[in-house]
Every structure is written in structure tokens, then in C-alpha cells.
């Protein structure tokens, strides 16, 4: 059956990674393809955990602040664009949407010069602030479409009850959009988690590094500790795995219902 073969081929590299993460160096050399006895799980994983712990905490810290700032700014803007009319609306919306056409790679170098001038190098903010700014256009576009589709009656009812504009935002619009917010948050966290180049050039200080940069250097320090190396790779995958177990349903529904189609 073709599907079984596809699943095996797709997952095999990670299975190999998991099996090798339990071996000592000599076990790896002598039983390359199969699990070896006794397993060196504790030894390898403790070594890997000590190396990756700091990076993981940094990434979680940056990820959480990014997502909070990202969702706050994009939902506010999308809410205004979706439910109100005001002078300059079209121009402002257009000037935001045009960013979708400008690739991030264009600004890599000037952005680096700019954060250096702002003295943000080697701080968490050098990641968080640009991460909040990136992807605004896309998220506002998706959220505006969603907020526009909410029935006007809900907002009218809230207003009769005396709610002001900001109150209808957080009492009506936000609670109804949990699914789409979860999808956008997962996508954003995944991008933060996976970014290599920006943290590579802006964080010289090892204690501030995110997991992706940490692993990039990690392989240099441990020449023959393949077990610990693969254990570190596996540990780095756990947080996103947990996030997906929680948000998988939302995410699959979000992707399939058009959050990604844009």
C-alpha cells in the first residue's frame, strides 16, 4: 500500500533520530540500524537537556510575548477595518496590504543596521518587536474577513446594552474568534521557533539565543556525542508537539477552512 510506504519514508528520519538518541557512541558504530542494549537514555538526555534548556526557555519567552503583541495589534486593526467607516480607510488598508508583496529578505540588511542603531542587539526585543511587525498584513487580512462575517445584530445588541466601540471588540468580536486566533498563534509560534537568520545575526550572546540558533551551534561542540545530539533535536521538538496536540483540531480546521488560502 502506497500510503504506508509514504508514511514510513516521511517519518523514518525522525525514527532514526529517536533510536540513535538512546545509544552511546560505540553502540552507534556497532549496531547502526537497530536499537542497542542497554539504552543510554538518561545519560544522553541529561546531557542534551543541560545544553538546550536555556535556549528553550528563551524561545518560549520570545514566542509568548510575540504572540501576545501580534494578536493584540492585528485584532485591533482588523476589527476597525472590518466594522467601521472613517476617512482614509481605503488608503490605510491598502498601504498595509501592499506589504504582502514586499519580501522580508529585502529588508534583512537595513533592518540589522537599524536595530543596531536602536541599540537593540543582544536583547530579547531585537527578536520580539520585528516578529510582531512581520506578518501583520496577512493576519489583518484574514481577521478582517472573519470579523466582517460576524452578524451585525450582535454588535447592535451590545451597543444597546451600552457597550462602547472598544467593549464590543473584546466582549463580542474576540470571544467569537478563538479558533482563528489559535490558528494564527500556532503559525506565528512556528515561525518564531524556526527562524534562523535573524537571531543568528542579532544575538551574539549565547545566553540569549533561541533554540534554532542554539542547535545550529550545538552540533559543533559535540564531535562524537551523536546520542546527545539527536536527543537534543528531539527535546527541541517537544514543545511544538505539545502545542499541536492541544491545537491540532483547531489548526487543521483553520487551514482547511481558509485561514491559509487568503
Amino acid at each position: 500500500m502506497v500510503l504506508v510506504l509514504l508514511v514510513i519514508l516521511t517519518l523514518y528520519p525522525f525514527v532514526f533520530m529517536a533510536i540513535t538518541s538512546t545509544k552511546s557512541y560505540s553502540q552507534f558504530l556497532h549496531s547502526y540500524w537497530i536499537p542497542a542494549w542497554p539504552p543510554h537514555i538518561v545519560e544522553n538526555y541529561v546531557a542534551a537537556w543541560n545544553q538546550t534548556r536555556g535556549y528553550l526557555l528563551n524561545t518560549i519567552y520570545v514566542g509568548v510575548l510575540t504572540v501576545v503583541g501580534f494578536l493584540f495589534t492585528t485584532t485591533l486593526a482588523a476589527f476597525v477595518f472590518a466594522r467601521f467607516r472613517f476617512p482614509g480607510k481605503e488608503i490605510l488598508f491598502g498601504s498595509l496590504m501592499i506589504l504582502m508583496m514586499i519580501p522580508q529578505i529585502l529588508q534583512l540588511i537595513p533592518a540589522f543596521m537599524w536595530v543596531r542603531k536602536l541599540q537593540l542587539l543582544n536583547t530579547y526585543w531585537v527578536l520580539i518587536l520585528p516578529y510582531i511587525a512581520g506578518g501583520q498584513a496577512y493576519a489583518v487580512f484574514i481577521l478582517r474577513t472573519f470579523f466582517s462575517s460576524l452578524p451585525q445584530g450582535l454588535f447592535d445588541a451590545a451597543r444597546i446594552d451600552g457597550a462602547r466601540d472598544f467593549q464590543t471588540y473584546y466582549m463580542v468580536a474576540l470571544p467569537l474568534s478563538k479558533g482563528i486566533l489559535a490558528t494564527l498563534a500556532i503559525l506565528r509560534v512556528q515561525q518564531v521557533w524556526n527562524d534562523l537568520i535573524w537571531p543568528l545575526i542579532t544575538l551574539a550572546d549565547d545566553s540569549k539565543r533561541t533554540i534554532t540558533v542554539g542547535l545550529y551551534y550545538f552540533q559543533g561542540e559535540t564531535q562524537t556525542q551523536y546520542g546527545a545530539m539527536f536527543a537534543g533535536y528531539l527535546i527541541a521538538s517537544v514543545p511544538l508537539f505539545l502545542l499541536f496536540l492541544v491545537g491540532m483540531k483547531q489548526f487543521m480546521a483553520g487551514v482547511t477552512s481558509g485561514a491559509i488560502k487568503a
Partner: protein
Amino acid sequence: MNPTQDLWSELRKSWHLYLFLLPTFAFILIFRYYPAGSAVFHAFTRWNGAGIATWVGLENFRTLLTDFIFVASLKNIGIILAAALVKVLIFPMLAAEFIFNLRSERGQYWYRFLLILPIVVPGIVVTLVWRFIMGPKPLGVLNALLELLGLTEWQHAWLADPKIALIAVLLVGFPWIDAIAMLIYYAGLQNISGDVLDASKIDGASIWERVMRVDLPLLFGQFKLLIIITTIFTLQNFGGMLVLTNGGPGYATMVPGLWMYQRAFQADRFGYASAIGVVLLVVMLALTWINNKLLKETDVTY
């Protein structure tokens, strides 16, 4: 009331709305518009990053034409992009079709779950694992596998041999089932109305005929979307190449983004690097425009 007064009262009435927009626009002005504009400006300067940038007109762009590493990087990215498009148009689509045609709902769910699972593995880990797979003898997995199969003459220093490094890079990720692409195809298949599927069944169409005549035309929107996403992503993403080969050996796997990065941060030629960024911007805009032109208005619905 005259129009100016009208505008004034409108502005006064909606001032708080502008306040709601302020955070978004502050962020994009400072971290998107300003750097992007700065990149375009500095593409026309000589700039070592520390001192003042000197205006040199089109000099950087003229130099690019004679920069043989840049020209080689364009050729490489052309090959990589063509391969990426072929991969994303075929393999995730096949997986989605196979899953969609399963009878049991449970089976559909579990195969989807298993094929999406790699999405939780950080990109850097995927790249590092593949670098290990393609690694030298005796520990590289691919070479060890060839040894096991007795195909020793097929063994290579995959990423270190200038003649095959680019091919090795293209093999990374095999069997190339991109999780997001597969979900997009699968959603597209689910959106095909049951009536159409029933009609093709009544007409006695085999699964193969249905796929060719019904599914593929109706997935046109998904193909178009993935072509655009893949093009933009492939052209600007060079982190994977940095880790896999760093453009080497020599410049056998150099891509424009990586060359831009190296010129800037290893040679302090920031103006020149900005010019590479501008070329990439123009190429991307052109390709997006061509995609939209070629693939427009041919949407199919039954």
C-alpha cells in the same frame, strides 16, 4: 456645511479608531516600511555599514552582471525553484488523493495525522538530520544504506562533491510531502461537491478517470495558491542552504539570498548586498505578476 468641516467632524468622531490602528501602523512603519525603503536606497550606494553611504548610481547592479558567483547563484535558484514547484504540485497532491480515497474515516484521520506530524519538528532539526543522512561514510545514513544494499559504487560524499551537491540538496526532504500543501489539497478535495463525485461514479468512471477529469481541474485554485507560496518562499529562504552546505563546495549550491547574506556580513559590502535584495524583490514581483496573468480567470467550477 462645507466639505472641509464635514471631514473635520468625521475625523473628530472617529479619532479613537485611529488610536486602535496606531499599534499596527507604528510597528510596520518602524520595522517594515523604513528598512524596505532603506534597502532600495542603499542598493545605489557603497556602504560598509559603519560609515556613511556614498551614492554610486547603478554601479552595484553593473557589478552584479559580471559577478560570476551571483550569476551561478541565479542558475542554481532557477533549478531549485523548478524542482520545488514540481515537488509541491505532485507529491502532497498524491498523498491527499490517496487519503481522500480511503473508505474509513478513521484511516483518513490517522494518515493525515501521521503525515502532518513532521510539522512539529523545528526546521533546523529537519535540515540537520538531512545533513547527517547525506553525510560522509561510514556514518551518513544514505551511504550506509547503499553499503547495506551492496551498491558501493553509488556512494558519494553527497554534499561535499561539487558535481552532485546540488542534486543532493534537491533530494533533501524525500518523499517531499509538505504538510501544509497536503492539507490544502485535502481541503480542496473535500470541497468538491458530493453530487459531482456521485455523478462520476454513476457514469462508471474509475478512480483514475475521476482524478484526471474531475479532481485535477477542480484543484486549480489550490495549485495556483501553492505555486505562488512556493515561489516566494523558495526565492527568499536561504537558511536551509546555509546549514546544509553554506553554498559550497565552492559555490556549487550558492543561492542569491545566501550570497547577499555573505556579502553583507562577511565582506561588509552592505550596499552591494542591498542591490542583490532589490534584484530579488524585482524577480519576485515579476514572477507573482506572471503567475497571476497566466493562471487568471481559468477557475473551474462544476
